[in-house]
């Protein structure tokens, strides 16, 4: 695979919830090693896009190709095995399990069992607070700590492609700053990241590429820097 070959292709995909169409014939691709951000208003279809990639919802038409392999319609638990992990919306951690049990489940599908302890240590190194609280029920963590756990746990699966759904939601500005820093650091280790954010300004600042969604369609897309400079985008999504 050459450096610029897409790791993920989303080809003409349509997704429905019952009779409601949430994604309309959408196509985009993600290049290996990049951070691609999906931004857009509430209900634009960002989470639905990630759910489709992870196999939680089956597209009605179109195909999703990961590392050259068609993964459309594969069950979610098999897609994770291909090293495609998601930290879902609303932190999505098991509140009835301890921090360490959550981390452990993150490694359920990890291909290299030998790296288990090293990854656990790495996660705790990124977020030392989690190590202190590792035997605590994760339901007792603060919102920020829960988000840290969601990210650390996704890393336990040794992803090549990491999907993050609104990691900054409801967090204090300093913590958001830290989360974005960590996302950048993780990306520098070579991991490809699809970052869903409502916080478009900050997301575009860390991303290489941006895709703006509106009611289930791509409104515009381009290198993150270009989008940040575009007047239209600034007005509509960045609150200028």
């Amino acid at each position, binding site marked *: 695979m050459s450096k610029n070959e897409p790791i993920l292709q989303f080809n003409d995909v349509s997704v429905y919830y019952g009779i409601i169409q949430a994604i309309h014939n959408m196509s985009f691709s993600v290049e290996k090693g990049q951070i691609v951000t999906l931004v857009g208003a509430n209900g634009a279809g960002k989470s639905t896009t990630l759910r489709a990639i*992870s*196999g*939680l919802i089956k597209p009605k038409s179109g195909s999703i190709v990961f590392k050259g392999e068609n993964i459309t319609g594969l*069950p*979610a*638990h*098999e897609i*994770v*095995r291909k090293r495609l*992990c*998601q930290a*879902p919306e*609303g*932190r*999505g*951690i*098991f*509140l*009835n*399990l301890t921090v360490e*049990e959550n981390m*452990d*489940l*993150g490694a*359920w*599908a990890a291909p290299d069992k030998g790296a288990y302890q090293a990854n656990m240590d790495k996660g705790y190194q990124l977020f030392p607070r989690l190590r202190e609280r590792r035997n605590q029920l994760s*339901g007792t*963590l*603060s*919102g920020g700590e*829960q988000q840290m756990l969601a990210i650390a746990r996704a890393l336990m*699966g040794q992803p090549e492609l990491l999907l993050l759904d609104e990691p900054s939601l*409801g967090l204090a500005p300093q913590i958001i700053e830290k989360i974005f820093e960590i996302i950048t650091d993780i990306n520098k280790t070579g991991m490809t990241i699809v970052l869903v954010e409502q916080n478009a300004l900050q997301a575009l600042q860390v991303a290489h590429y941006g895709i703006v969604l509106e009611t289930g369609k791509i409104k515009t897309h381009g290198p993150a820097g270009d989008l940040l400079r575009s007047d239209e985008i600034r007005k509509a999504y960045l609150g200028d």
Partner: protein
Amino acid sequence: MAEFAQYIINGLSQGGTYALIALGYTMVFGILQLINFAHGEVFMLGAFTGLYTSKYAGLAILGTFNRLLTGSAETASTGAAILTAIVIILVAMCVCAAVGFCVERLAYRPLRASPRINLLITAVGVSLFFQNAGQLLFGSDPKAFPDLFENLEPWTFGADENLIVINPLQVFVFITAITLMLILRHVIFHTRLGRAMRAVSFNHDLASLMGIPTNQIIAATFMMGSSLAGAAGVMVGMTYPKVEPLMGSLPGLKAFCAAVLGGIGNVTGAVLGSFILGLAEALLSGYGTPTYKDALAFTILILILLVKPSGLLGVNRTEKV
């Protein structure tokens, strides 16, 4: 005092069997939010499996154990009776696990995405199916359960006023129930499978995002719950000692009440609720009137739903924002 002790012993033994049934209700509810009304019938099938295993293989197994333990197949020994009972229980547990697997696979899984009410109606349907299939297959007349423990004298303590009679079978039932519960507890809280079960019961999608095959975990949950009900069926069959195709409905409903009392979905709660119910029934029968014994479970159910619908140990899950 002796009277009281006697009732407590009876209550603990009864509570143990309720707990084995209630655990299946609560585990299935925890993982699917489904009240599996067919669970009482799995208990009944366990009793019949035990009955037929005892009838056709019981003597052979007992003889083998007698020979191993005493050197002669004819010499009765407590150890051999206990080992035979354990083998029969294990057979029933395997059969019931298979039944639980089929019920989930054939009746519930196809409806997983349907509205809750469809599942509930299906559960009632499966229950009726087993009750009627049981009558067709086994006949509706009660069948006597062969007595493995016939050579064992009850243990007595004290005399006259203070006489306490302990039936070895009661002790066996209690210890077996506790052992099975401890094994279950170990599986749920200290194994990978148990961790996956807890994850799936929290959220199916989230569990599958970890790579957990949720369908397999749900099937395993049904199998475990059903096997416990099967063990309870055998032990109730041995105790009464009668077995009939409709025997599952009342203990099933009572165990369900016990599960709600403890907090449905909560494994510890199911055990607690069951022992409370078993003891309360024993005390009511002893000091009050046995006539109302069967109504007690439902009275408790109504009271707990009025006072604390989440049950004694149930918590309302709150998500942090």
